[in-house]
């Protein structure tokens, strides 16, 4: 077994006296999706924010291809190939669709993905390329946010609640897309979701957090089959 693309070891994050992430260990292989599940306040978003450098870890490691990410600035972690799509999608509403997309690839210069690639992947965005991003629908914003992250050709994609506020049919589309991105581009996807059922339907592995700690980690199918776990933490 080769070393996982993204390896998180005993990661701990404190907000003052509050321990948001408590010794989390997980791994995401190239071309696979790992879902991080749990209720509100379980530490899912804090985990992603710590990996991408937005929060400072108190202890532990986050390794990309064996190299430590912790301690690097947010801008440098992106440059290592870790793209973070934030909760609420982080689309900059005052910029146009195309400006948002271009922004994602600017640091890569000529090595960035061409805009046309994103328009092929997300046809609705092409029609709205010159419109202010604030005029997009929720699903379009999610596409824009993911497309913008892909512009830099990342190795790891951190997705925070991509299903939030979307209609079930759109959620299904987005989940399918995430699955195919991992498979076709060899991306290592760490998918944070409250919508455990949809997330597990496309994930290879699942990690369940409660109060910042891992309470279960297994193959996605095994988690779905574990009825007591589902009732206790996943709510379905």
């Amino acid at each position, binding site marked *: 077994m080769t070393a996982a693309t993204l390896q998180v070891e005993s990661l701990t994050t404190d907000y003052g006296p509050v321990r948001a992430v408590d010794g989390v260990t997980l791994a995401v292989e190239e071309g696979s999706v790992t879902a991080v599940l749990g209720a509100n306040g379980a530490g899912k978003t804090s985990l992603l924010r710590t990996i991408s450098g937005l929060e400072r870890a108190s202890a532990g490691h986050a390794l990309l291809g064996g190299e430590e990410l912790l301690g690097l600035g947010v801008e440098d972690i992106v440059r290592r190939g870790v793209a973070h799509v934030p909760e609420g999608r982080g689309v900059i509403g005052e910029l146009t669709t195309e400006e948002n997309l271009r922004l994602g690839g*600017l640091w890569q210069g000529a090595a960035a993905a061409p805009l046309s690639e994103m328009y092929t992947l997300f046809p609705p965005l092409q029609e709205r390329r010159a419109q202010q991003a604030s005029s997009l629908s929720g699903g379009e914003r999610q596409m824009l946010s993911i497309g913008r992250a892909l512009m830099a050709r990342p190795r790891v994609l951190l997705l925070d609640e991509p299903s939030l506020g979307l209609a079930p049919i759109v959620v299904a589309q987005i989940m399918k897309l995430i699955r195919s991105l991992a498979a076709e581009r060899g991306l290592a996807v760490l998918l944070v979701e409250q919508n455990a059922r949809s997330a597990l339907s496309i994930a290879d592995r699942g990690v369940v957090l409660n109060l910042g700690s891992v309470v279960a980690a297994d193959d996605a199918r095994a988690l779905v089959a574990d009825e007591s776990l589902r009732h206790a933490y996943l709510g379905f």
Partner: protein
Amino acid sequence: MTRFIDLTLNGISTGAVYAAVALALVLIWRATRIVNFAQGGMLMVTTFIASSVIGSSGSYWLGFVVALASGLVLGALVELTLIRRVEGGPPLNAVIVALGLLILLEAGAGMIWGNTPKSFPPAFSIRGYEVGGTRLLFSPNDTFTVLVVIAVAAGLAALFRYTALGLKMRAAALAPEVARMLGVRVGRMFTLGWALAAFVGSLAGLLVAPSVFVGPNQFDPILVFGFTAAVLGGLDSPPGAVVGGLILGLVLSYVSGYEGSSLVTLAALVVLVAVLMIRPGGLFSTSKERRV
């Protein structure tokens, strides 16, 4: 009628200077959400530098270029050393730091260059153009003032609109955290925003110095007028700053010409209060809600 034309022309050239100061304030507001009350002090220092260079070298243009360059450096320096510490904090902290810097710069300039205002040469002749036997209140130097401000405003608009750097600066200003997650070095963008603002400010200082003279406190009214112009146009909008500057220049020119120059400052404050009461976002506001 000639009087009206004269006042209009004069309003346009002074308005261009207010527009430049307003642009400097807008650039910093957009980048870091700080109203730079030290702007008047910063452009005073760069104009003093120009005055010294012109005095010792005899070349106006050398002084001009040195002043603009020192504006860039001063802006970047102020952001890196002082403003960095208050960015993202309560707005009042930044205001106090800016006011403190203003006092520091004015006192320092007084110690170095003296408190007596000195004359400052114009770039071109200030003798008005002669049209059909009458001399207009508009000179080659006024033409230069208007053109150079238009050029700078257009250059900035092109920078923000068409370049990758401009896109990064806008993203850093609009959503700093998201911009960082996309690899934009936000701190550098803020530094650059301050440098550009101080550059435009130093230009305004050079343009207005021949008529107000150079002294530690000579540029205080210019800051008030520039701020009024920026609020009039909408603090977020560079085109608004230019239009606001021109409108204010015209209004103040008419007030000064028809009612007396002692009412100019009062008129500017009336405009400021009126805008804040009727359309607090300014003429060119795009957002509905605004922190003040």
